[in-house]
């Protein structure tokens, strides 16, 4: 969804950091994208390359770390793996799963020169 807006948000953070660090060029950017964040990583890469063109992050490589989804079962209290925003608790069969991890979209670090 809305990968262009996310790419622009990323570019703001990246360019602000590059300016603060007096970097000439951003070589790579390390992102953490949760499996439940509904971000299409190939679309994000495409959009970022488009918005970063002509600036210090032009051509920067995106290193995307997948963060696995997990949730808490509100019925039995167990923490279970989740591959989508809803699922079934493998332990008790309840549908009352609340996602607790894997929804993040963060920039962890970047390599500059």
């Amino acid at each position, binding site marked *: 969804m809305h990968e262009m807006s996310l790419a622009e948000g990323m570019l703001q953070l990246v360019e602000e950091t590059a300016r603060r660090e007096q970097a000439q060029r951003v070589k790579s950017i390390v992102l953490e994208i949760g499996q439940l964040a509904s971000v299409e990583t190939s679309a994000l890469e495409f959009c970022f390359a488009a918005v970063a063109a002509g600036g*210090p992050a032009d051509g920067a490589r995106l290193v995307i770390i997948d963060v696995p989804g997990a949730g808490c079962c509100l019925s039995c209290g167990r923490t279970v793996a989740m591959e989508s925003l809803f699922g079934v608790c493998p332990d008790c069969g309840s549908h009352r799963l609340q996602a607790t991890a894997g929804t993040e979209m963060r920039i962890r670090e970047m390599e500059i020169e």
Partner: protein
Amino acid sequence: MCTVCGCGEGEGEARIDGVAHVHEDGTVHSHAQAHDHDHHHAHGIDGDLDFGAGPARAHAPGLSQSRMVQIEQDILAKNNTYADANRRLFDERGIFALNLVSGPGAGKTTLLVKTIELLRDKVAIAVVEGDQQTSNDAERIRATGVPALQINTGKGCHLDGHMVGHAVEHLKPADGSLFLIENVGNLVCPAAFDLGEHHKVAILSVTEGEDKPLKYPDMFRAADVMLLNKCDLLPHLDFDADLAEANARRVNPDLTIFRVSAARGEGMNAWVDWIAAGLAVQGARRTESVDALKARIAELERQLATR
């Protein structure tokens, strides 16, 4: 940030009342070049906001050594900063803000009109209407007698915290009022963008599929309330309302659900009562913040007296 109007970086242009407001500088961050601000004299309460989008650019001279820099920030940090500022303003003034989201055609605008008719004698209301194009919806709201501002997102698929911050500046909602934001009709993108609202309210109509919460889980997960609208049509449809509710609760076990018919008025009282309860909470919050300010003034006066 633009020091003149508070605009953030990354906008191509924002049009208000049809008057151009151009961020055309190469170095967006420093605003070193031309920066027109024609609109500040032109926008009234009926003025529409028109946003486009464009990438920011920056030139950074300096070192050539390759090194890693920690950032550790949410990609949406910028939007969240704007949203937090909006929420702080709402809380200080006792305003209750709701962000209404749904797919196109679920009946958001009709629901808003009926909600306003039920509440306008009891509380001041201001409305923000988000659409890609036209000001038709804002005109429908204005016909009820409450101020409405249309935001045209242009190519954008959602409202963001920055747009809503501008809308608040224009609408100047009264203390203790109800602030309703009708987001762009889209069940995907608005889920991720906090506008500073107190609750997202998802609207699902019975002319859609019962499995919509499973097809578009992000929105139903982000929402605190779901209104199942057009329930007057249930006798004529195969729609299983219980199944729709169960599907929504699979995605979001804590969801509060109201079955309503905005067109016929059924179920609307429970929804309006829920809004009234939210307004009461915000009113109490404002009293608290006013009391805290008064205590601070008294303390400062006491300090002054001892000098």
